[in-house]
Structures are given as structure tokens and as C-alpha cells.
């Protein structure tokens, strides 16, 4: 990514993701939290009092809480490499933190915490009967690959009936995924 300082790089990335969300699933803006001149930052939906919130989604009666922890590292060519240290995407029935959640996609990097459970995982608010007994998918950490915000948006539009503002939403998501690969120098 391009920028003179971490603040500028984080703002550019926040603006990109916030713009993508606002064109596709919600009007809520993402708020950036960044310690001045440090290479770490976080963004989430926040209300007017700067308190985290779950954003209402277009039309489907669902709410989404988004959080990403980020790090940037300056490269020898003066560009910045972006790294995601943690993410959480919670799909809920209402906006407040105690409302019933439906799905939680989560990740914490090994750099931050060594887990006994899969670091990329999903929780689903249901219990399944199996021959081996009940599988509590609410509590279990079900392994996933890297879940991008673009894939969460795609799921909400294509399968949960959220109505995007733009017709070419899938093209926009594909472009964003390509940018993410460039900025992080990784395949997702």
C-alpha cells in the first residue's frame, strides 16, 4: 500500500473497506482506532458515542459487527505491507452486544495468541445430534480457511437476501479481493 506514514495507510484501507460495505450491505461507516505513528490499528462499526455496534444490513433484518486488527510493515521500496492480526464478523438478530448471534467468524493470529483450537474458525448457533453425541456448534471452533470480509459480504447478498445498492457487487468484491492480495502479498 502507498502512504507516507502508518496513519495514512490505515485510513486508506479503512476507507476502502468502509466504501465496499456501504455499496453492498450497510450504510454504517467503519471507525478507525489508531495510536499515533504506531504500526498497529483496529477498525469497527461505532455509534455516535464511539461505542462498538452491530450495523443494520440492507433489507434482511440482520445486523453485522465487524472488527479487524491490523499491522503495517514498511518495505524496502517504501510501500507498506498489510497484515491482519485478528478479525471477527458477528451476524446478529439485533444491534446490541447481548442480542442473539447467528454466526461468528473469528481469527486470532499465532503472533497474538497460541490457541488450542483452530485459529481460523466459525461458531454457529445450533446443536446437531450425531451418533457420537451432540455437537454443540455454538461452542466448537469449526475450522475454516481465511475468511475475507468480501466473502462475508458475498454470503450475505447471495444467500441471506441482503439487497446491495449496486448491480455489479460481485465485480466490486472480486476487485477488492485482488487488491487485498496485493496489499498483504498473500493468496486468500
Amino acid at each position: 500500500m502507498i502512504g507516507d506514514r502508518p496513519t495514512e495507510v490505515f485510513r486508506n484501507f479503512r476507507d476502502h473497506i468502509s466504501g465496499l460495505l456501504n455499496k453492498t450491505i450497510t450504510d454504517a461507516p467503519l471507525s478507525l482506532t489508531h495510536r499515533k505513528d504506531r504500526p498497529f490499528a483496529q477498525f469497527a462499526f461505532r455509534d455516535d458515542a464511539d461505542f462498538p455496534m452491530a450495523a443494520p444490513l440492507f433489507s434482511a433484518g440482520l445486523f453485522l459487527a465487524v472488527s479487524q486488527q491490523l499491522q503495517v510493515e514498511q518495505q524496502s521500496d517504501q510501500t507498506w505491507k498489510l497484515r491482519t492480526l485478528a478479525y471477527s464478523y458477528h451476524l446478529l438478530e439485533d444491534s446490541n452486544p447481548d442480542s442473539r448471534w447467528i454466526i461468528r467468524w473469528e481469527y486470532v493470529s499465532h503472533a497474538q495468541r497460541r490457541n488450542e483450537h483452530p485459529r481460523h474458525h466459525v461458531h454457529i448457533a445450533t446443536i446437531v445430534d450425531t451418533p457420537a453425541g451432540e455437537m454443540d456448534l455454538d461452542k466448537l471452533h469449526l475450522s475454516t480457511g481465511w475468511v475475507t470480509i468480501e466473502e462475508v459480504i458475498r454470503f450475505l447478498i447471495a444467500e441471506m437476501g441482503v439487497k446491495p445498492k449496486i448491480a455489479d457487487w460481485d465485480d466490486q468484491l472480486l476487485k477488492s479481493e485482488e487488491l487485498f492480495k496485493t496489499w498483504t502479498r498473500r493468496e486468500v
Partner: protein
Amino acid sequence: MSDSQLKAMIEREAQALGLTFNDAVSRVQAGQIGENYLWQDLASLVQLLHE
């Protein structure tokens, strides 16, 4: 954002969870956090403070 502003954010979220600032930081550092998004946000702010 200054460290004091970040600490104030953490303290406000800790209070909403019925905790003091120090208790919240200890819980986050011990990996003993709740499952709702307020806890997730608090944990990421504490992490940010200590990076």
C-alpha cells in the same frame, strides 16, 4: 489517538461489561473473554494498547 484516549475507550467498554479497567485487561491477557462483539472489541483495544 493518544494512550490516554485509548485507555478511556477501554475503561468505558469495561464498565459496560461490569468490570474495572484492570480486571478487563487481566481477563483479556488471560484469554478469558466473553463471546459477544463488545468483548471482541475490548480485547482488540487492549491488544492495541500493548503493541
